[in-house]
């Protein structure tokens, strides 16, 4: 026993002495934190985030580091799992800021984590860009918090206008999850926008259910009977197939329109032909994309074997924004507080940033002004660009 103990100690000391890490001077490394839901309710979102981040890092490494003010710096990603829980997202942010000294944080994706995590980032004066969070509170009164996507108050009217212009309908039905923050918010915004256009009472059915419900027949029967011409359902990709197939079984014949939460590769897999020909609003369309967007999609497909969701594309854009801001900051002093502030100032100055999900300029709140895309699920089950709407 004693021999083993002594041997272990000796082995460790030798390993320490000859390890390349010992006595190495601390270098200035640019660290970017990724706060992603790798486990928990929405692991697919976390996976997309992680993959996009790894692709970005690959590019940087290929270029031999990130050049800031004529000097190349090594870049490191700190990927933390927030378990899709608010308190874990707060812990992850605190850890990355106080322990890992990250220069900027990308994430968390869902609003329920991004709102409390944004508080932490703002408190410690560190730039945080949430690629996917649509809740206005995420960036409200927080100078250090930004986002990479448009907000619900913009998306709702876009969908309402699209339906009116495309089909000329005047009566709409809404089906949404009352227990989930995002669908509920968007349903409300859509209702307001629709009624502003077509007069009070033009939303003839406004039905709700609770997360994890799988039977929507009573709500859908009401919707079918209400005489609505179109059904708007801002639900997640795992619920949409159930809603669509049940609606069709109950005799619904009108179009069903959705929002950016539909935009997952899983949707068509789960839904099959029932979803062909439907429309939803989103951040970008994979099929028929051009230029940098196409390059990103092709590369992602080649590396990971499936078409990237909008989360991956938005994460990619957020990382590019962070990179741009770091480079615009001019030079890194090595004093992390100062550098973070410089990055924040540079980020607010970015104008007409050309991302793969469209051109972006930040408002004073840290929300981007960018276009929404209307996507059609074509007969091959691909997400096809149909039209776009800009503010």
């Amino acid at each position: 026993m004693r021999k083993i103990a002594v041997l272990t100690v000796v082995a460790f000391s030798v390993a320490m002495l000859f390890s390349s890490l010992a006595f190495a001077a601390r270098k200035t490394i640019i660290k970017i934190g990724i706060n992603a839901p790798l486990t928990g309710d929405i692991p697919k979102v976390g996976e997309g985030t992680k993959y996009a981040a790894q692709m970005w890092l690959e590019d940087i490494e290929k270029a031999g580091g990130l050049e800031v003010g004529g000097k190349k710096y090594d870049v490191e990603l700190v990927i933390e799992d927030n378990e899709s829980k608010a308190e874990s997202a707060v812990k992850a942010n605190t850890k990355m800021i106080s322990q890992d000294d990250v220069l900027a944080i990308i994430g968390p994706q869902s609003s329920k984590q991004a709102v409390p995590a944004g508080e932490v980032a703002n408190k410690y004066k560190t730039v945080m860009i949430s690629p996917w969070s649509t809740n206005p509170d995420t960036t409200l009164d927080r100078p250090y918090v930004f986002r990479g996507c448009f907000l619900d108050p913009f998306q709702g009217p876009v969908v309402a206008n699209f339906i009116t212009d495309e089909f000329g309908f005047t009566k709409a039905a809404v089906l949404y999850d009352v227990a989930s923050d995002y669908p509920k918010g968007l349903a409300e915004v859509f209702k307001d926008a629709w009624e502003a256009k077509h007069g009070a009472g033009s939303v003839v059915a406004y039905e709700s259910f609770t997360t994890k419900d799988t039977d929507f027949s009573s709500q859908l029967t009401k919707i079918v009977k209400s005489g609505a011409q179109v059904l708007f359902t801002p639900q997640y990709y795992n619920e949409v197939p159930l809603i669509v197939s049940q609606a069709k079984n109950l005799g619904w014949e009108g179009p069903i329109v959705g929002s950016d939460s539909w935009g997952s590769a899983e949707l068509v897999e789960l839904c099959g032909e029932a979803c062909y020909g439907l429309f939803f609003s989103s951040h970008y369309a994979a099929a028929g994309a051009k230029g940098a967007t196409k390059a990103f999609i092709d590369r992602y497909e080649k590396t990971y074997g499936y078409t990237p969701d909008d989360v991956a594309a938005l994460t990619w854009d957020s990382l590019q924004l962070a990179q741009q801001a770091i480079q615009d900051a001019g030079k890194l002093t090595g004093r992390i507080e100062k550098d973070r502030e410089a990055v924040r100032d540079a980020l607010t100055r970015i104008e007409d940033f050309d991302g793969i999900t469209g051109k972006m300029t930040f408002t004073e709140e840290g929300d981007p002004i960018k276009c929404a895309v209307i996507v059609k699920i074509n007969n091959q089950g691909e997400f096809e660009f149909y039209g776009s709407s800009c503010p």
Partner: protein
Amino acid sequence: MGIAKKFQQVFSTVPMLGWFLGILTAVLIEYFWGYDYISYYLGLPKIPVLFGALIMLKEPMMIPGALAYDLIVYVIPVLAVAKLSSVFTNPGAALLEKLPLWLSAVIHLVCFYAILHLWAGINDYRVLVVKLTLVSIILTVSVNVINGYQGEFSCSHPGFMALGAYVSSILTLVLFTNDKIFGTALLPPSLGPYLFPLVLVAGGAAAAIGSLAVAIPSFRTRGDYLAIISLAFMFIVKSAVENLNFIGGARGMGGQPDLAPLPVIFFWTLLCIWVIHNFVTSILGKALNTVRDDEAAAESMTVKTRKTKMTAFMFGAFWAGIAGGLFAHVLTYINPGMFSINRLAEILAMVYFGGLNSIVGSIVGAVSINVLGEALRPLELFKWIIIPLILIFVMIFRPYGLISFTEINAKKLLEAKHKRQQGVSP
């Protein structure tokens, strides 16, 4: 085995005070030399925050460095100082022994807090982990009153926590902050820290009143009914909050003032442990145990079983409400999704892991599940395989949890240890 025995023999002469001194030395070493010298020469980017667990799992290259750091900063100084200082810490402990036990305990606790504060203060991430762990301790001890001492199976603790969190958050938002839901503050925000205890108690009281909704219908019977009713209660609270738009609904409620710094939470945790300890060792607590073991016999021995059960249930719910209030003010954001089935699983894991019918067990359970959960986070998905596996093994080998049905004897823990050395049998 030989080494362990020898180790125990050598260090059996160190009193609690000696260990404190050792840990204090380690923390001071870390505080003054940890970043600039020790971690620098060991090639570590920074002070390893949770004894290097995070960095070791993330970058295996750092394992020797992190282990060496632990050895240099923690293991060697703690052991050396504890052993060498026993020359004068033992007389010190003997001196304290002459004081009343409560005073000696208070002195020890103050020392403990000072060390904890210093250790956590090195990094803000540590502060957050310690805060959430302390909140978990309150929660676990309060569940133990119902699931352990009372022997029922209650599932409504997330619901009580939600009640406490929402009521106290609404109060602080109405009283001390200008926010967009409730408008301008009614009282000057500087009063916040002074009135915060009242706010917390109000949250706890709300939870206790809410618990009546479970207690009144379910304590007419025994067995599984409580589990089902309490589970329903949890979902009722969650759905109710989701549908109440004026407190944010599913979007949640944010912007609570930061009224829960580490000392405040530590104080409440101590208060909770002390009060619950007194409760379960009181006549009422003994009555509660008899009700658990045999309700008919207890009734025939003039124990008012129904009243006893209701009191204990409300008492447990009250402390869950306090924990909820503290939790809300640590995170400064709450949403109904936080107080759902996941939280329940976490709470029950802490209670059954640590041990039923024991306050020390609850503390051990809360601390170990929290620290494990934090330390294994870099493993991502495998974390959710390892922790349940540990739980299964605990259930197989210690069906009532790690430390169950026992309490630590404070007097024995704090006494001077030199008597044994002189051959006086303990």
